[in-house]
């Protein structure tokens, strides 16, 4: 009988009764054929592989990583809380030692959800990986965690949430933002003033194939991870780099995804996008499951592989080789942030964010305190087309005394000013979450 080398927990939550809309790619049967394939292969009978039921995330779980306006309930449905809960269950299984690794095959996805949330963007409302990561930091006393996002789209939400966090290394491999939604993820985006080089973007050209992805992992991702020495590695395992995906232009394969996963060797993988639900997902998911369990995946191959898979051209190979130096430099010798304020003052960033799914326009002013003793208190003023001005103030994990005091003071001032519909306080040091909505 087959035995897994690594004990693997699978959290499978296909949400068969939830869709964004009837013909939307993020719809009920997205994981139906994946489940068929995994069942037919007998995955759940393999010695060492267990299927686990998701938790349901709590509002506090969400508030650790998001400022939801006007509150958590207004921007989530039960399915989002179960999907995030699935990721949390995966983390619990690994960190409690129930299993060696875990894969949360859950939907809806989350990696386009940013720190502040007014609605759905890029099929995402709340960020499953960041909610899971903050759960790990809160409950398991881990500090350094890496997220490697292998979805075809730039993980702009995850990037935004950890932009200022030097303890979280976020690496995103994606189709170049000049050619695909959401348009971001350029080389020059490398983290906030207090966390330079801890956000790493690797924009790959359209039609990158197995060779290019594996090269990127070997020559860029792995050396950076080796240096950062994370205690936990998380993979945002989007599957829309597949050559059959209807909404992207890459040339990746099931076998390639399995090999990538084997090399990356994440503790936890969380499903993100992937909309070729018949031609790709059943095989990619199977490949990832086998790779994580340490079982031979060499016979995993799409039925049309020989006919439709095209290896990349020489130009692409050359282009990716040239990326290498820039990417490594961004991590090992990051250029300082020229807009960085002096110590004790705020660095300000202005952002306009479009929520494509819900058609919401948000404009933000983000203030981060430059502090020598901690990551610095964060304040986001946000106005959205559906909400009057709101503000979120966050005292970070391990926030210093001065930043704690500053955070509480900013909160009181904001409430008193009556300028905001909603004022949120996230105090990660004292685990206090306040919401004052007028």
């Amino acid at each position, binding site marked *: 009988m087959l035995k897994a080398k690594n004990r693997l927990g699978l959290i499978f939550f296909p949400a068969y*009764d939830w869709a964004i809309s009837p013909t939307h790619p993020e719809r009920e049967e997205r994981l139906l054929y994946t489940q068929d394939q995994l069942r037919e292969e007998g995955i759940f009978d393999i010695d060492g592989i267990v299927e686990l039921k998701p938790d349901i995330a709590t509002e506090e779980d969400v508030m650790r990583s998001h400022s939801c306006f006007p509150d958590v309930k207004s921007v989530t449905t039960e399915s989002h809380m179960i999907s995030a809960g699935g990721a949390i269950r995966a983390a619990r299984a690994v960190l409690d030692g129930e299993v060696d690794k875990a894969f949360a095959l859950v939907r809806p996805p989350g990696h386009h959800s940013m720190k502040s949330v007014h609605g759905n963007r890029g099929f995402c409302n709340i960020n499953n990986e960041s909610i899971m990561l903050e759960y790990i930091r809160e409950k398991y006393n881990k500090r350094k965690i890496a997220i490697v996002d292998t979805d075809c789209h730039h993980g702009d939400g995850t990037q935004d949430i950890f932009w200022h966090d030097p303890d979280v290394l976020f690496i995103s491999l994606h189709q170049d933002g000049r050619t695909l939604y959401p348009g971001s993820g350029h080389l020059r985006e490398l983290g906030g003033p207090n966390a330079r080089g801890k956000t790493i973007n690797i924009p790959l050209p359209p039609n990158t194939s197995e060779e290019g992805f594996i090269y990127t992992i070997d020559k860029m991702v792995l050396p950076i991870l080796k240096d950062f020495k994370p205690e936990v590695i998380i993979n945002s395992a989007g599957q829309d780099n597949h050559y059959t995906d209807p909404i992207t232009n890459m040339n990746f394969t099931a076998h390639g995804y399995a090999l990538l996963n084997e090399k990356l060797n994440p503790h936890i993988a969380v499903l993100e996008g992937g909309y070729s639900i018949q031609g790709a997902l059943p095989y990619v998911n199977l490949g990832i499951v086998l790779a994580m369990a340490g079982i031979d995946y060499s016979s995993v191959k799409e039925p049309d592989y020989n006919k439709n898979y095209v290896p990349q051209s020489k130009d692409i190979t050359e282009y990716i080789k040239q990326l290498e130096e820039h990417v490594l430099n961004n991590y090992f010798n990051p250029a300082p942030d020229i807009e960085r304020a002096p110590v004790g003052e705020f660095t300000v960033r202005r952002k306009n964010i479009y929520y494509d799914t819900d058609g919401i326009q948000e404009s933000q002013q983000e203030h981060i305190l430059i502090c020598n003793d901690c990551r610095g208190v964060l304040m986001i003023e946000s106005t959205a087309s559906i909400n009057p001005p709101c503000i979120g103030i966050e005292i970070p994990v391990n926030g210093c005394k001065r930043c704690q005091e500053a955070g509480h003071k900013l909160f009181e001032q904001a409430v008193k000013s009556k300028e905001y519909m909603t004022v949120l306080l996230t105090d990660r040091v004292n685990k206090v979450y306040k919401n004052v909505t007028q």
Partner: protein
Amino acid sequence: MLLGIDVGGTHTDAVLIDKNGIKSTFKAKTDTKDLFNTIITALKEVISGVNVKEIKNINLSTTLSTNAIIENKLEKTGLFISSGPGINPENFKIGDNTYIIDGSINHRGSEILKLDTSALEKDIKACVKDGIKVFAAVTKFSTRNNMQELQISDSLKNNGDFITMGHLLSSQLSFPRRAATAYYNSAVWRINSNFLISVIDVVKKMGINAPVNILKADGGTIPAEASKSLAVESILSGTAASVMGITALCKITDDAVVLDIGGTTTDIALFASGVPLIEKDGISIGNIPTLVRSLQNRSIGIGGDSVISITKGEVKVGPERKGPSAAEGGTEPTLIDAMNFAGITNHQNKEKSIEAIKSLSEKNKLSPSDIASKSIDFAVKKIKDEIDRLLFDVNQKPVYTVHEMLQGRKIIPKKIYIIGGPAKAFEQVLKGDIKIIVPENHGVANAIGATLAKTTFESELFSDTGKEKMMIPNIGIKEKVSQKYTLKDAEKDLISYTRKYLENLGYRDSDLNIEVVESSSFRMIEGFYSSGNDIRVKCQIKPGVMMNLYK
């Protein structure tokens, strides 16, 4: 009158039940070398003095196929698997004659790679040369498209006595389970069908003109005639017989635990709102999972004859049995001896029990009463822990919709029902917050269950309305349907095709309470347009008994 025979590992019980209840019972030692003779003896004894014309039904639970598998008395079987992309098919070889043939069907039932017929012909020749007469054909996703299994079967037609095709065993997905189940079904086919032919023949000769049915692990029966080609369905039916016995003896409406305590093992089963729980995937033979439907059941090595051992001052009971208890003339003290010592039971020769516990005490630095009480505590804890584990697993069972996730019903047992030889003794030691019930006639609950069990069945329909396809794999139905085919149509079709199939096989009408248990329809989208519906409907006849014996 209804007649039932339950052939167990050590005992064979026969029961005759009429409208007033149990009319006669008979218990004999099982002659494992001659099950046929054991059955005939039991049959003759239990019907002596009865007008055989009044017998309306015979149910039989046998260990024949189970034993053949466990003792590896299997006929050499040629297993042909074609698999397609996925886990390396080498992992699913079973027995010494598995042949892997190129060919592949995908999860939508489309043929991706044609069957390599020249390799197939070559391997068939090798089988013929080897003298192999029984075969099994299993291809990946054959429950979505059975064409390659049919092709293999066709090529084998003139070369053997019997062939099992995977898609006829179950509609459930799981290629490895299907391969193992088909293999075992063929490997015990001959011994099982010869046995059934003899039983049917002898019943006729006794002048009994009643249908003969065989008990299955899911607590239901299958007509003997149909069972000939589905031998594997009759494995591991022993516990199911006992559980069905409980449902006839006690009015169960709540969540409950059933303990069937024997000499060497305790079997644990669960009821949800009065209905025995079915294992969702199928029973395992040893560590090989199959598609054979079964009741949810756990077995642990604690029974009345479980031997007491002491290592480094730690008292343990089981899992071995080293002969009977001291009270019954054995050499080493067992759990029953501990209960005799503690005054809980008064089983056979109590003095011998006391002696045995005392002599164990002399070899260890523990007082006899400590040994007795620690043995009992150990056994109680083992059983309680296993009940908790089973409940945890059942209650943690994953669900796949937001609705079920939020509704999540948990099983919380209100009562424990105990049957089996030492049931009365365990009633005392398990006492606690939960109510314990030992039904009258618990000693023959197994035979009562075997006698009264009704037919069970399960089938599943798949339709891809875009491709105008509908199939019910395990009853061999494949039809063209219109693109407007609805979920309602599918439910209706599944029930009527299943009914027709069962009636043809000799299932009696009164038993055919077919209910739809799962039903879903997904709109499939190509680009941004609908390309038809993916419809799936599952129906079953759930386990039940022909009459109740409680007042």
